[in-house]
């Protein structure tokens, strides 16, 4: 199963927080992605990683956390008992407690948008492409291809320079 998730290129994030506002709009005023600033300068966005070996899914006593067909880790609210286990075991502290309903909430990779064939809102909006949605293997393959193209280009230029004797 191709498991897709959101990857984050920290070097491109400009801390504009468009992703937060977009997520909030799609999830009733609550954002599941947060942008942090480091040492006055560098910024990074952080959201659920939908981990390969997700500790939250493993630890959930009621199976409220599960995977959908795209591999996203989702939460079934009717099964959640608010025991907070998932929040504690998640290395990034992602699942949050909804203080009113006393159940957990987390990024669902915009299930409602994926159902319509659209990308998650944060990815769709990120102006700098710091966020991208895809399958790990596909992304790696794409990156290798890009690198090779660049290398060939470089070799060609070197050849041209040699030919013109510059």
């Amino acid at each position: 199963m191709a498991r897709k998730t959101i990857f984050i290129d920290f070097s491109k994030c400009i801390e504009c927080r468009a992703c937060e506002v977009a997520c909030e709009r799609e999830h009733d005023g609550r954002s599941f992605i947060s942008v942090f600033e480091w040492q006055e300068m560098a910024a990074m966005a952080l959201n659920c990683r939908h981990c390969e070996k997700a500790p939250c899914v493993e630890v959930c006593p009621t199976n409220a956390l599960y995977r959908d067909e795209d591999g996203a880790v989702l939460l079934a609210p009717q099964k959640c008992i608010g025991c907070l286990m998932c929040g504690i075991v998640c290395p990034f502290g992602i699942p949050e407690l909804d203080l009113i309903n006393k159940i957990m909430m987390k990024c669902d990779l915009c299930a409602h948008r994926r159902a319509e064939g659209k990308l998650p809102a944060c990815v769709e909006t990120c102006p700098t492409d710091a966020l991208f949605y895809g399958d790990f293997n596909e992304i790696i393959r794409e990156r290798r291809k890009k690198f090779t193209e660049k290398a060939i280009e470089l070799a060609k230029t070197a050849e041209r320079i040699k030919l013109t004797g510059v």
Partner: protein
Amino acid sequence: MSERLVPVVCPYCGVGCRLYIRSVDGYPVGIEYAKDIPGIANELGKLCPKGNAVIEYLLAKDRLKKPLKAKEQGKFVEISWSEAIREVAERLKDYAKDDPNQLMFFGSARTFNEPNYLIQKLARMLGTNNVDHCARLCHAPTVTGLKAIFGAGAMTNTYKDIEEANVIFIIGHNYAETHPVGFRYVLKAKERGAKIIVADPRFTRTAWFADIFLQHYPGTDIALINGLIHIIIKERLYDEKFVRERCVGFDEVVKAVEKFTPEFVEKVTGVPAELIIQAARTFATAGKGVITWAMGLTQHTHGTENVKLLGTLSAICGYQGKEGCGCSPMRGQNNVQGACDMAALPNVFPGYQAVTDPEKRKFFEEFWGVELNGEVGLTTIEAAYAAEKGKVKAYYIMGENPVISEANANHVVHVLQKLEFIVVQDIVPTPTMEFADIVLPAAAMLENEGSLTNTERRVQWSFQAINPPGEARPDWWILSEIGKAVGFDGQGPKGFDYTSPEDILREINACTPQYRGITPERLKENLAGIHWPCPSPDHPGTRVLYKDKFLTPDGKAHLVAVSEYKGPVELPDEEYPFLLTTMRYVGQYHTVTMTMRTQALRKRWPEPLAEIHPEDAAKLGIKDGDWVKIVTRRGEYPIKAKVTRTVKKGVIAVPWHWGANVLTNDALDPIAKIPETKACACKVIKITEEDARKLMDKLPQLIPKIEIVRG
């Protein structure tokens, strides 16, 4: 229930992003990204946080829904549209009968081309050229400076050219924060291997991506740019062929920059000489280069000279008239370019045709069927001083908020109190509205339709997505009703009898050479829009200007030399030891009328913070989060401090959104008449929270409660 997805243009900045508004029965319920429209400015439908939050301000509880008339300052009674229109028209007619120059009109860079065309037509038909708008406060030097050297005042290229450049020089402009979606093109260029040079007094989000970062003192741009030109000439890195064939005035430039050696420039700007040399070499040898700037460069008494020097720098490197090259001034509001094109300016008719030119005047006299005034009118700041002397007595303000946006805001308030008659046409209560005699409730941009021109000269049509609240009406409707009530009821262009914005755009097509081929039909069909100049209905529009010749009378670029170094007019001294500069936040917009009414933005960017260098802060005993009072010769402003190394020592940076213009200097650039908002001397004093609250009570209320009493 009918759900619709309507293509609109974002109502915020000048990038001109497209998006869809999802509406049910004329009520907005969400947005969708415009992924499926090829060739738009925001590639793949990307949006910044403001674009993502466009719905909330439309639903603000305090939207204006009925025309209002003041009983006393700040207290209003509701009146009907017919009463309001009659009253405004009568008063305008009265003033025009005595002396039309007692009137002053404000166009708006926040609304469509059509109402801007109408407001200047109304002013001019009444007999005055006193019409201006807030471009005066942001890019007036860009218009005058670029016009002087290239022959037209607009961006000479498009986003596509930024993407294709090999070097991008960003000066006086925090691109990543002010225009995140536009910055995308800079990053794409960088990915391709382009070099980024950033010059800014602050280490901004933009500077983070710079290959070369020049941190100069606010207001020392002339020295810095002259320094770059000096090195490029000394090392013969300029484009000799281009200079020989397409430019005049090069010899004067050579002489003028003589004394701007890297050592001299280092002393003035605080940027190490080697860095300046490195920047000059990188810029001149890249082959394709773009220069981009904004308010950090223009809001100075020497703003016009700054722009002219940048034009010269770009021309001597041969970076004009080619793809991947050019000058890209970034506009702040969604229709600054359009409002200028439509001539909401005191010196020109639509399409930059000078009011002083008898031939152009004759054309418009025949076109509109009235006699026209041939004297250049007043700019916004000049009007304020004329009002103080009692020469200007009435303001018609459409969609502007001078109490917050103009430099030396205390003076503006003083002037508004003095005026006899003020009409404010807007969508929500603003601090300016407190002084109004008549308030006209306007439909917001997304609640009506029309054409807009983004920063890269791209004209786009935005459709009506939802219904306006209450009795709010489109700007074009209000102005055409007033025009008719004043008595301009002639046929076609000779009157104000319009039934739709399309009618008005057709009239614009007929009298504005650059817009001749930009018809409503074409715009509605082609959502990506058309770049002006577009001289005929079958012309595809123009991406790069000046391919064969410049628009100056002789077709050449007129290079400009500035041999005298001029800094800010007000420099730090013993009493006011710091240099104050203003800045912006990505999630707040201008005078916050829309963004502070948007929960998602307000909670992320809740308040202003004054940036101060740790060493300065230590000297003054200020810690992060302490309340301070910033004092200049014009006013006092309470604000919390943010101790950070992003600013240079001796510099204080304050966001201006929340009314910091009570501090800034309104000394004018003599040519473009822009005030020096970006640099002045100040002192910083630590105060208690209680003192801060007291001071705050004295400042204008950003979101005022308008009191409605019974008539």
